[in-house]
């Protein structure tokens, strides 16, 4: 069963990566990164799982995840704030559109 857990988190990681590659919107790219990092924390949490127990077998993973998730939140908040300012300035958050506008300026 625990293998299933690792497969699911790896698939989530790849889905996050796919979101970043396939979407032009900066907001979605940030969310894709969130999915990627979130899947890693899920993976770490899974390491503390032991069969048949309702609490983690050891607390190391939980400690890492608690710290990591807070930092992730804070980084994503700054990234979204940057994207928001960028969107206000260019009137779009589409990377291709922003690239076109920047080439026109030069």
């Amino acid at each position: 069963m625990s293998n299933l857990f690792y497969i699911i988190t790896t698939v989530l990681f790849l889905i996050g990566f796919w979101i970043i590659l396939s979407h032009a919107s900066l907001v979605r790219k940030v969310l894709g990164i969130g999915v990627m990092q979130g899947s890693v924390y899920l993976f770490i949490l899974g390491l503390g799982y032991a069969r048949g127990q309702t609490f983690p077998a050891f607390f190391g993973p939980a400690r890492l995840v608690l710290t990591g998730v807070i930092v992730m939140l804070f980084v994503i908040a700054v990234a979204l704030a940057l994207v928001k300012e960028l969107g206000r300035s260019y009137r779009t958050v589409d990377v291709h559109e922003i690239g076109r506008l920047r080439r026109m300026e030069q």
Partner: protein
Amino acid sequence: MTTSLILPALIMLPLVGAVLVFLLGSGENKPVGLFPLGITVVEFILAARLTVLTAQAGRIVQQIGSFALESDAIAVLLILVFSGIFLTIMLFTVNLLQAEISPQIVPHYYGVSLILLAALMAVTMSNDLFNMYIFLEVVSVCAAVLVAAKGDREALAAAARYLLLSMLASALVLMGIAGLYGTTGHTELAKVRQALHGAISSYALPVYASTALLVVGTAVKAALFPLHSWLPYAHGSAATPSSVVISGLLVKVNIVFLLKVLTQVFPMDFTLALPVRPILLVLSTAAILGGSLMALRQTDIKRMLAYSTAAQVGYIFLGLGLMNETALVGSLFHILNHAVVKGMLVLAAGSIMKLTGRRKIADFAGVGRRFPLPMVVFTIGALSMVGIPPLSGFVSKWYLGLGALDGGQPVLVAVLLMSSLLNAFYYLPIVIAAFFRSGTNIEQHMELPAGAKVSMLVLAAACIVIGLFASRAVEFLEPAVYQLFQGGA
């Protein structure tokens, strides 16, 4: 100050300083500029004291709860570089920062800078993979904010580009750390190393995959050549002090992370057998030559300096790829040397841009006669980049070259020589034009504050002194580097 307090003090001092800057913040600008300068001066004095203590003790470890800080000769060198470069940046910005970014956010700029300094210290002294990752995230976010601080859309776009790429790279690094944690059950460097002996045989694939993720992620964050796309934008559109932070500190601290992973986590025989080394050698050669060729094509001075940084990052990775004693000494020395020299070049170019309002390389003709001080500093930096013997640039090339011969790769010596030639091709014409050609109607837009002049002179003096007393620095480093190869952690 006692030994036990000095390591945490190096992290806490800038953090407390940052809080005070945010609290004192708005209103008058002048005391705000001087206060962070004072903090960094004290920080540098502490770093110097730590150097003396480490030279006596060899290695200092300080346990605070479950959190350990340690310093050896290598860490001390980096702490000195980071705090020293920060000191000159703070000196440069007194009374000058208002000219580049909007005055209301100047206190915030200083606050974020001090948090960045604390995080740099924490990464350097930490001995835990996960803690290093957390502090590197703090470094990235602070750097993105410093780039965006300029406020125009160009800077915003560059900051967003940098932060998104860095976050993506962080996700890869995090997966790598999670992989090592899963196979060994530890994140502390020494414990991972111990557990890895057993883990490599039973979990070979996860360990290799984690290593690949760590290397690729760090290569993006350290702007190794094909993955450097964020560097020219961020470096070119940021305010001058932010550019120094990027090329002198941000790129370096990620290389330090990779160095710690390759030398302190993995057993040396494992690192030496990794297929990552030939890849790093190829990429660093590509970086040295490709970065220089790209720099040659630039018309904008700050862009040119950015591509030059991409080339210099190649030098440092070259030492990591060779992974022998001499090459690693060369790499570490180049971290010091490049931080100082690129700091000089960026500050000098930035002051000329402020003084004349010009940033095209073609417009630099005659500026050296009009404004000798920044241009003389720029010339010393340029000569050091080319590798003229008494200056610091020569020493790192010398050790990297010797390391290449030790590693049986004489081709790389030719690469180093080629790159010196290329450096001469793109730096010296600027110097020659600035001093020996007459410029037309160069206007003076502003007066350069005393702090800016002093900071450039300090860096120029450091460049010459480091070059003259290089053997002392190398003697200080050598035992610590040799120890990495002895198998002891």
